[in-house]
């Protein structure tokens, strides 16, 4: 990784060679360690998805057996959720940008930050072993007693991997929380923070409070599987529903770990390319916290048909509708920011607008599923698959792309091809909709998830979906190539190519190892665009 790349006295220049990267405590270099590992996992998870979509082109199971198919969607889920989406924006863009946005020299605990990457890699060894050794067939949800008693896959190994990676998440969360509290620049009050920092903070709170519950649950699961302690085993008096409750107590908040940072990125990009301050700054900030809080109260909506009491179902259904309020506040505020703005459609903005559309669409579909009666019908169908892929892929991955393109000049000091960027953004939007919109229809028609065969009348929608996946795969490969190309041979980027506000743009591109030559001081609210500023009340 001895990149002969950029220039001047940037963080690239502080030592070359593998050693200086693997032992670094510089948050900017650790962001790169994460970026490369996560990119690898994204393509591993993507490969599994590719095989799934090829299998589903025909109604018969002709490419893989049912058992292999189970293992494919399990690996796809485990890798994409825990080894890509959860750490994606926080560990890469968040790691790189949080200290810069706060005018700080580094995160509060630089060694803990490096340790978190090593823990991540250590955990990923277990999961990779589980994949190579033959896979897991339980689905990413590890439901008991299938996982504890009956499964013949490598459940313990995969669960150990997820368990260990959880600690890396917790380390990042603690680091971000303490950094935001203790390392803000002089004059940078909480309501002068960029929304990206607010969302990272809300994400970190969820990480810190939810991940340990997953750790305890997986520990019980593995103890149950290896030693037979029986907590989740009904034959010994254990309670399988308890597993689902504990699992979703983590995994529903984890959905917000996966979307909040994306909302943060979009809240940075839209004001910049609309040349207007973010509309309703305070409400957007509060709604991030609101989503984090509500996120902890809705886990039961995954269990409407699991045998929980009807009254619990009604309450969870109501609370799930409540999450729509802070989410809608954000969408309306982004729309109002665009109104009367001088909108330009550079690549990051195209991705950000794609995010808003896909997130709103996926969110509205979520309201169908939050409704108790409709969910009983739609549960475990492709409607659910389509819904959460609109949020996780259409939302989070698109926002991740928006962020990478927005800050790439800052991170690398190089510009990418705007032309290729726009084509990729367009293809990604089209490919995504072609892949996942047919799945809404399939789900509505009643096609259940997790089967490798289906009745012939569903074939046309499945073929459309698989065709979309081809476009999507091509669109994802493009940034990998042209962003990498730009890293080495791109045109040199100025310090602030988008004329954006925010402390990270005040330093050089790429930043020096200590981030700022002079400690920045904050004197006003964020998003100072077009001569206006976001409202600020002390």
């Amino acid at each position, binding site marked *: 990784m001895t990149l002969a790349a950029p220039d001047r006295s940037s963080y690239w220049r502080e030592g070359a060679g593998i050693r200086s990267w693997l032992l670094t*405590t510089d948050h900017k270099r650790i962001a790169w360690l994460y970026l490369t590992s996560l990119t690898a996992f994204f393509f591993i998870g993507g490969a599994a998805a590719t095989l799934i979509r090829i299998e589903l082109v025909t109604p018969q199971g002709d490419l893989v057996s049912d058992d292999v198919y189970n293992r494919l969607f399990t690996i796809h889920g485990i890798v994409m959720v825990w080894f890509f989406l959860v750490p994606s924006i926080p560990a890469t863009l968040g790691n790189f940008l949080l*200290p810069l946005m706060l005018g*700080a*020299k*580094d*995160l*509060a*605990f*630089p*060694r803990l930050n490096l340790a978190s990457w090593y823990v991540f890699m250590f955990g990923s060894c277990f999961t990779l072993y589980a994949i190579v050794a033959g896979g897991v067939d339980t689905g990413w949800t590890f439901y008991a007693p299938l996982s504890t008693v009956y499964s013949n896959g490598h459940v313990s190994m995969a669960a150990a991997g997820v368990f260990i990676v959880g600690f890396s998440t*917790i380390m990042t*969360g*603690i*680091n971000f*929380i*303490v*950094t935001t*509290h*203790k*390392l803000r620049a002089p004059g940078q009050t909480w309501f002068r923070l960029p929304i990206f920092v607010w969302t990272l903070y809300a994400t970190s709170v969820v990480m*810190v*409070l*939810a*991940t*340990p*519950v997953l*750790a*305890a*649950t997986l*520990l*019980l699961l593995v*103890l149950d599987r290896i*030693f*037979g*302690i*029986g*907590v989740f085993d009904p034959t*010994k*008096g*254990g*309670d399988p529903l*308890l597993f689902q*409750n*504990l699992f979703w*107590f983590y995994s529903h908040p984890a959905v917000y770990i996966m979307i909040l940072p994306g909302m943060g990125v979009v809240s940075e990009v839209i004001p910049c390319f609309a040349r207007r301050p973010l509309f309703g700054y305070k409400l957007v900030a509060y709604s991030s916290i609101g989503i984090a809080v509500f996120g902890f109260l809705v886990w039961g909506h995954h269990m409407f048909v699991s045998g929980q009491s009807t009254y619990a179902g009604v309450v969870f259904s109501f609370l799930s509708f409540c999450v729509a309020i802070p989410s809608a506040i954000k969408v309306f505020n982004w729309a109002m920011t665009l109104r009367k703005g001088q909108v330009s459609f550079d690549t990051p903005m195209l991705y950000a607008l794609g995010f808003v559309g896909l997130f709103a669409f996926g969110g509205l579909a979520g309201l169908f599923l939050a409704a108790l009666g409709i969910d009983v019908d739609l549960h475990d169908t492709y409607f659910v698959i389509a819904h959460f892929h609109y949020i996780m892929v259409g939302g989070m991955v698109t926002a991740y792309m928006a962020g990478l393109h927005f800050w790439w000049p800052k991170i690398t000091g190089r510009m990418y091809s705007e032309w290729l960027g726009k084509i990729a953004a367009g293809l990604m939007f089209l490919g995504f909709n072609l892949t996942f919109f047919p799945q809404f229809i399939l789900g509505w028609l009643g096609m259940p998830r997790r089967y490798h065969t289906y009745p012939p009348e569903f074939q046309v929608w499945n073929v459309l979906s698989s065709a979309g996946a081809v476009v999507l795969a091509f669109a994802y490969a493009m940034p990998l190539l042209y962003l990498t190309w730009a890293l080495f041979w791109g045109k040199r980027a100025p310090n602030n190519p988008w004329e954006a506000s925010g402390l990270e743009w005040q330093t050089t591109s790429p930043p020096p190892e*200590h981030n700022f030559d002079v400690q920045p001081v904050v004197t006003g609210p964020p998003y100072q665009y077009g001569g206006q500023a976001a409202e600020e009340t002390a």
Partner: protein
Amino acid sequence: MTDEPVSKAFDEVGREREADTFGMWVFLGTEAMLFGAVFVAYTILRLKYPEAFGGGSEKLSMWLGTLNTAILLTSSLAMAVAVESAKAHALPFARRMLWITALLGAAFVCVKGYEYFDDMQKGLLPLLGPFHYDGPDSAHAGLFFNIYLMMTGIHAVHLLIGISLVVYLALPIRIPPGRQPKRIESVGLYWHFVDIVWIFLFPLLYLVHP
């Protein structure tokens, strides 16, 4: 005392110490959630099988449990004294109190180990040996003993980590003396937390009446 901050993120050492303590509090929040999940599992199953949990609890050695509670509370006292004396810059005395803390922690682990052995001899630990139980609801009592072993086991692992941290601070390693009080305080927070977990475990496991 001209020590520099450890982390390059901080300009002055006072701010860094605040951050260290705050970080420890956040970490204890995660620990509370970890144990919280296990306590929920306990609660659900106890509500389901109150007789098995009551009967199982009677079989555990209340004397050893009480002894361990006393040992652990005393260790927390020693820890509290260590923290305060370190703040008053009486570091040699603080070190001695840390040794006492660690020894009491080790005593707890030894008593616990003996207790496991004793339980096993009595046939109370189905995971480790043959199971003989003559109390009420024998079909589900095994679940109680498994949970007992698991909960006290997780607690013991936390205590072992705590003992290593305390011993590390008590060793005469050259740490700049200005940094020592804050470190002892952070580890002290962790120690007290592990103690508090036991305060919940003791009645939940030993003092259940059918």
